[in-house]
């Protein structure tokens, strides 16, 4: 019979559909895995409500559970996702693949406060960076610019 540990291990191998360097476990979108007989119940919390990757994530989790010989029941958790749920391992992988990880803590609610956050360039490590655009190619990312290596880079939004 399948164990919760096996399911977690399988989920750790599912890449995020939009940032394949991190897995669903690294992102912290899986809240709970419970095995009840031949059924695996997963509590899942998508990053942004408008994230088009949500359906792909659900399908992949269900498929992995089926491959382990169990029936999948994927439920959306009542509590919302926060960027603080990204694991230390996930933050490291993000940075390695050219994304600045989100600033810790709750998202600032004014632009002034947001602009004061020091963000390190994932390419050269300089802290001489500025916010270029609150919005980026997906709902979870902003665009910053590094004045030191003169590269734009993407930052995961704090949420």
């Amino acid at each position, binding site marked *: 019979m399948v164990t919760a540990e096996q399911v977690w291990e399988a989920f750790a191998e599912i890449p995020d559909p939009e940032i394949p360097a991190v897995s669903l476990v690294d992102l912290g979108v899986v809240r709970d895995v419970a095995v009840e007989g031949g059924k695996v119940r997963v509590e899942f919390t998508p990053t*942004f*409500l*408008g*994230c*088009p990757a949500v359906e792909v994530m659900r399908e992949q989790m269900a498929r992995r559970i089926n491959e382990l010989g169990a029936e999948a029941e994927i439920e959306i958790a*009542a*509590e*919302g996702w926060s960027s603080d749920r990204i694991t230390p391992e996930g933050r490291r992988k993000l940075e390695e693949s050219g994304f600045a990880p989100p600033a810790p803590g709750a*998202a600032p*609610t*004014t*632009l002034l406060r*947001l602009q004061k956050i020091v963000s390190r360039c994932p390419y050269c490590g300089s802290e001489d960076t500025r916010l*270029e*655009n*609150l*919005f*980026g*190619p*997906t*709902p979870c990312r902003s*665009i910053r610019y590094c004045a030191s290596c003169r590269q734009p880079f993407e930052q995961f*939004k704090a*949420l």
Partner: protein
Amino acid sequence: MNAQELLALADDELILGWRNSEWTGIAPFLEEDVAFSSIAQTEIGHARAWYELAAKELGTDADAVAFDRDPHEYRCAPLVEARLVPDWAQTIARHWLYETADSVRIQALMNSDDPEIAGLAGKIDREEAYHRMHADMWAERLRDEARFRTAVDELWPSALGLLEPGQRGRLCEVTGRDPVDAVERGEHTEELRPLWEEMTMVRRSIPGAAW
């Protein structure tokens, strides 16, 4: 909250999301092209979440409530219906008024007795914080521009109409504007039908299509 109230919220977000997406590819700056496209995507995501709650009450699914109604059955407010491309001043005026009014409404929903509604409103509020920062930045930048001020004056009665009468005083406080007679929800402008025709085209031509 009944299904009709949920539909009003969802329809506002869907139609505004659609209108915001009309700037994709043609906004005055590349940054705004990206911003309006991303805001459109999150608004439509919020619409979907509200439609899912409404659909549960109505015994159907989110796509059916979003796309299978006739234009007169939509509950969106006139503020979100207008096609404002290519007028940037009017677009920013609506963006700022909508986000500010929406924030008043979301704050009220976060205190709902229904935990599902309050929970969803809380999630949405955290995402909307980014929309508000963007709208406030633009409103500040255009504050002294005559075209922007005129646009805000023109849209103000429709912005009040987005909210329940009891919430309108709060919007006046937040924006520092005087109360006026609101343009109420209920009558649609002529601009909704062409949008609806485009938005529902695939559903109507191939019922039950999946892709």
